């Protein structure tokens, strides 16, 4: 826990304070990380979001049909995706795909003395390794969430258009009318907070690996489990603040 807080402070130092002391972070590594932990996750995000959109629409149609309220299917799909399932599910995908990869990569670097070598070359590992990943995920997770929301809404449309009595224009109008901008923004805030949690927990797990290949495995598991739990609990807290406050 002490290590984790130190890492957070250190990341904040390198992002907020260091640029004013002439040590600006480099852009190139951030883009590389954005591609590897963000862009490459897009196909998985798309598939997940589409399935969820379709499932949501089918379940909504089933329940609402009994009350004769099928016209509210787009509302339900839209709100559920924007507020909850979009940010949460895409964070789950990113934890499984990128959080574990980051923990394993940094953990392997730790056990093969690479981190120590960086320190001895007077290169700060937090600045060199953690900051690019942190900024990359802080940008890419909200971006992936917006992308996933679109695809999920597309999934809902597919059900409404081909299985229910909606036309495309009707679906779009109902969906857009049901949500206001705060629904989108709250989801974005959530995913930015999730990005912070995921990347700091994963990097911390990787940087504190001890004891060879076995330690790397344990750190990867710990990164995934801790990120998931922290993310889900934070989601509940944020929902209560945003919508029950």
């Amino acid at each position: 826990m002490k290590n984790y807080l130190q890492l957070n402070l250190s990341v904040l130092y390198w992002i907020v304070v260091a640029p004013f002391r002439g040590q600006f972070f480099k852009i190139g590594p951030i883009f590389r990380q954005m591609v590897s932990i963000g862009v490459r996750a897009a196909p998985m995000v798309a598939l997940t979001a589409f399935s969820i959109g379709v499932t949501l629409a089918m379940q909504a149609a089933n329940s609402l049909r009994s009350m004769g309220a099928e016209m509210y299917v787009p509302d339900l799909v839209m709100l559920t995706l924007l507020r909850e399932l979009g940010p949460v599910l895409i964070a789950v995908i990113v934890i499984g795909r990128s959080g574990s990869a980051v923990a394993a990569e940094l953990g392997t670097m730790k056990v093969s003395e690479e981190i120590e070598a960086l320190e001895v070359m007077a290169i700060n590992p937090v600045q060199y390794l953690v900051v690019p990943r942190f900024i990359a995920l802080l940008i890419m997770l909200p971006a992936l969430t917006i992308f996933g929301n679109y695809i999920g809404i597309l999934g809902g449309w597919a059900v409404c258009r081909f299985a229910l009595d909606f036309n495309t224009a009707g679906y779009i109008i109902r969906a857009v009318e049901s949500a206001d901008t705060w629904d989108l923004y709250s989801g974005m805030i959530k995913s930015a907070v999730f990005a912070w949690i995921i990347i700091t927990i994963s990097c911390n797990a990787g940087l504190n690996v001890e004891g060879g290949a076995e330690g790397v495995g344990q750190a990867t598991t710990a990164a995934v489990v801790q990120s998931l739990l922290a993310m889900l609990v934070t989601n509940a807290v944020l929902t209560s603040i945003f919508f029950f406050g």
Partner: protein
Amino acid sequence: MNPTGETIIEVNNLVRRFGNRAVLDGISFNVHRGETLVIMGGSGCGKSTLLRHMIGSMKPTSGSVKLFGEEITEMKERELESVRLRFGMLFQSGALLASLTVGENVSLPLFQHTDKSADEIEQIVKKKLEIVGLTGFEDLKPDEISGGMKKRVGLSRALALNPELLFSDEPTSGLDPIMTAVVDQLTLNLTKGSHMTAVVVSHDMTSAFRIATRMIMLGQGSIVAEGTPDEIRNSSNPEVQQFIHGRADGPIPLNVSQEEHKDLQHVRPRPFLGGRFRFHHKHP
């Protein structure tokens, strides 16, 4: 060589304990500019631990380490960085960053710590790789080259910023005899020609006697013998004689008992094959 120049490294009564076991138990020595100090000793005698204290990646239980006259044991990470820019370190495994190419590894300190242009850096990288006999290897990844080559890349990376002081952990293990001679000659050229100071941890006696101006032998956490290569070679200490001649029989204890060794303390004998055999092994 007698100490002539300024003192580069001052280690004073350095103690490091792991649990109850003192891995380093009151070590003191000085290294002067232009010297090549070889630290030798059996496996587990604390050589690497000593080296890690000298580069500031481990903090001692007590005692002091001064590099270039500055006390490093109480420095914060950020203060340590300015000292670290003045020395290079060659790790036993090379410790190259696996995600970067050979060329990028060597250029890393140059990109991070100098304002040189990409072209200048490319020229320096070429030159640094050339002196360790690896011309044209810039674009390979570390996993595409052999262990000995990795070590040579590690050496050229350590030399990238033209350090005043070079630490090497087993620089010649895993190298063929010719390459060993090349690396030794390189160390000699740098210390004689450019007045670089070198601290080398080594098992390789041929290479040690070739490059050393002074030698230290560690045993069980303290200095067993210290002197010029000639003094070491003619030492009357039986431990030194056993070590430099590589004899199996002698006064140096072969094993560390389990109680003494902290890392093994949590391993308890466990019944194996229904308790008929007892294996002292972590992974059955």
